[in-house]
């Protein structure tokens, strides 16, 4: 490095950043999704594109390859490409005779003049072969196989077969292939989100026919936006009931796009929009009755829940689910709303409710994390507080009910976990609180602490 700097003082040194390289390659793989859904990463510097059945969309194999190369060149990449009927041959062609198309069945002729490294073999094997004067792939293509295998291992022969297309080689695509997708190439880049929404509708109309033929509805949909400069945005919308109506899909994406409107950077516009069905499930056809009310009552609610979900992302509409636990904060769990579960849950819950006597008093609002309370005075050590300070304000206790002792769940927590004594407390102004004291006086180390856990009506 010092020598190089001495020779060229203006030399700029940039440290290798494999992480950034990998990131860039992933971005490129994203971009290549426009050609085929089957894109796989190959080491640190290559991409495999399985273009089976895709080439005719771009005017044939050669034109497609030219298209890839020219677009990458315009983006500032020096890319090489090779096209063959098997990954091994394509790999060799891309690296040593780019750009070239190896016709099916002519792999041996194409590979023969290439050096040994075109076969993707380990360096020590290559060194071994070169030491006996074998420098090109052609030198070992027709050599007797048994001595080669004995000398250099079975790996060499596998690579050889893969390069010639005699052995099957699978590439592992980076993303799962959606069962259905529709796309639209745009001559003029699209800048407005409204236009994207309209396009999503058009694509959904196309998808609807396919979904109808399969008798399915979409559970998860993905809208991929390919920007002119190569960036790819993907937006996923999940639904609680299978959908296939274009209008419904459009409205779901409207909320999704509205939620990300601030962060979406249209730049110079999008040139390719693709709508894919990520997950599909059987679509139950329900016949409407003559009054038009036969459709499931859940439908409106499910659609509402989906749109909230699309808008908020993550957990939108939540529903509490009772859990078998006597610890107050564990007795209920918030789960995202799904329509199918609801009916099931209702049956389960309604059956015994008539006979069960009402449980102990519980607050209507609970704090997710109990808040520490400073108790100024308690009448007796184990008794309720007379005054307490919560959120820097003083409260004077007028009346108290309790304690209700709630022990920890011994099967979950260590045995010496402290118990809680809950008190219903009413302050001088009539507000009712749920306080608890953690621990007992004189039982463990340290003083028991007080917490505010909930508010009554």
């Amino acid at each position, binding site marked *: 490095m010092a020598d190089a700097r001495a020779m060229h003082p203006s030399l700029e040194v940039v440290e290798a950043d494999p992480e950034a390289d990998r990131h860039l390659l992933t971005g490129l793989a994203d971009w290549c999704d426009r050609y085929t859904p089957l894109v796989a990463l190959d080491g640190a510097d290559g991409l495999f594109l399985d273009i089976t059945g895709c080439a005719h969309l771009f005017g044939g194999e050669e034109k497609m390859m030219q298209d890839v190369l020219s677009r990458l060149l315009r983006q500032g990449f020096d890319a090489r490409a090779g096209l063959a009927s098997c990954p091994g041959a394509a790999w060799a062609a891309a690296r040593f005779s780019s750009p070239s198309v190896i016709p099916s069945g002519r792999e041996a002729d194409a590979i023969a003049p290439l050096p040994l490294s075109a076969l993707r073999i380990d360096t020590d094997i290559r060194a071994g072969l070169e030491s006996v004067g074998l420098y090109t792939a052609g030198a070992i293509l027709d050599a007797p196989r048994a001595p080669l295998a004995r000398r250099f291992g079975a790996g060499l022969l596998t690579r050889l077969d893969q390069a010639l297309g005699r052995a099957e080689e699978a590439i592992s695509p980076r993303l799962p292939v959606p069962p259905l997708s529709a796309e639209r190439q745009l001559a003029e880049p699209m800048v407005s989100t409204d236009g994207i929404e309209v396009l999503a509708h058009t694509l959904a109309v196309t998808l609807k026919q396919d979904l109808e033929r399969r008798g399915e509805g979409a559970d998860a949909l993905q809208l991929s936006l390919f920007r002119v400069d190569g960036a790819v945005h993907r937006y996923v919308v999940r639904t609680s009931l299978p959908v296939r109506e274009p209008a419904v899909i459009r409205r779901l994406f409207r909320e999704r796009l509205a939620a990300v409107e601030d962060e979406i950077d249209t730049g110079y516009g999008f040139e390719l929009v693709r709508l894919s069905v990520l997950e599909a499930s059987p679509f139950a056809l329900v016949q409407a009755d003559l009054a038009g009310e036969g459709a499931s*009552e859940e439908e409106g609610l499910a659609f509402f829940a989906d749109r909230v979900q699309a808008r*908020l992302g993550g957990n939108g509409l939540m529903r509490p689910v*009772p859990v078998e636990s006597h610890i107050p904060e564990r007795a209920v769990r918030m789960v995202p709303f799904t329509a199918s579960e609801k009916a099931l849950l209702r049956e389960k819950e309604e059956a015994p409710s008539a006979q069960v006597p009402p449980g102990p008093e519980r607050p209507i*609002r609970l704090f997710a994390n109990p808040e520490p309370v400073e108790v100024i005075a308690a009448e007796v050590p184990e008794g309720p507080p007379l005054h307490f300070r919560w*959120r820097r304000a003083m409260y004077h206790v007028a009346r108290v009910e309790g304690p209700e002792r709630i022990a920890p769940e011994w099967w979950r927590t260590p045995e010496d976990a402290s118990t809680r004594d809950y008190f219903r407390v009413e302050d001088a102004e*009539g507000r*009712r609180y749920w306080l608890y004291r953690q621990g007992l006086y004189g039982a463990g180390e340290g003083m028991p602490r007080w917490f505010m856990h909930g508010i009554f*009506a």
Partner: protein
Amino acid sequence: MARNATAQKTIYALRREIARIEGVLPERLAAPGEEDPVLRRGVSAMRGAAAGAFLETGAAGLDNALAGGVPRGALTEIHAPAARDAGAAAGFALALSSLLRKEGRRPEKRRAVCWIGTADLVREAGFPYAPGLKRVFGLPAHDLLFCAAGKLADALWIAEEASRLDDFAAVVLEIRGNPARLDLTATRRLNRRAQERGRPVFLVRAASFAEPTAAPVRFHVSSAPAVPRSTLSGALEDSIGHPAFTVAIGKSPTSLPGEFVLEWNPDVLAFYEIRPAYSRALVPAPAHRPHLPAAGGTVVALRRADAAPAPGDQPSREERPAHPGPRRAG
């Protein structure tokens, strides 16, 4: 005579038009019968006309003051003076929802309650706790839908969408403070949605002061000391009975202002008017001038969002002690 009938018809049509523009209930303005509703004094006459438009709370005093009850198809504001009163305000809204659920006009539908809150208020005042809601308001877990929105705009949007649906008995929207976005337009939109569906939207506002909104009715709700539990041998000393609310009518198109203390009975799901035994002296609200509710927005733990701090973190004019000059002798 014929001319008189035509005039009546014109007046009737105009009245309906006014009702439509103002967004109030036409029944209120156009009572059945040909006589002028202004001349028909007495609450009972009004109540007969508008029986379907109001939800009777069951507390006779409050119902009479509101000329029938809480409007069904309207936005109703429920104010709590501080965030710690959010339990009482939300409790009152849920109690009203529970009354709606109990009616069961259409048993399959309209059973669920949609509760939308902004994330900051949910953090400060606690999230809805299903076992308590089931016990106090008879609201089973599967009938509650809860949504904590990070942004106020999202919360308003969800509330609007929810109030369009037929599946809910009531929509409860809970917002903290007096955000600028919750203006006349936003509340009017909610009010219109409620009118279209004939189902109330309760706007619970914690730690906020009253400001002009499109809601026809506004309540100021805070907790009232509960009546002791009653046993066979009389009241149980120092026990905390059913939840009690102090409800003050802050705004209503018809009502006289007033303050009522209501008790909610969780066993029969009904309101009763009580005279609080433990409370401070109850001063009847003056009838000849509007009732002034206690200044809202007093927050204990947190500074109110809209109160701009004095420049440079200096104490404001009110807080800064006066510095009297040296007293001049003689």
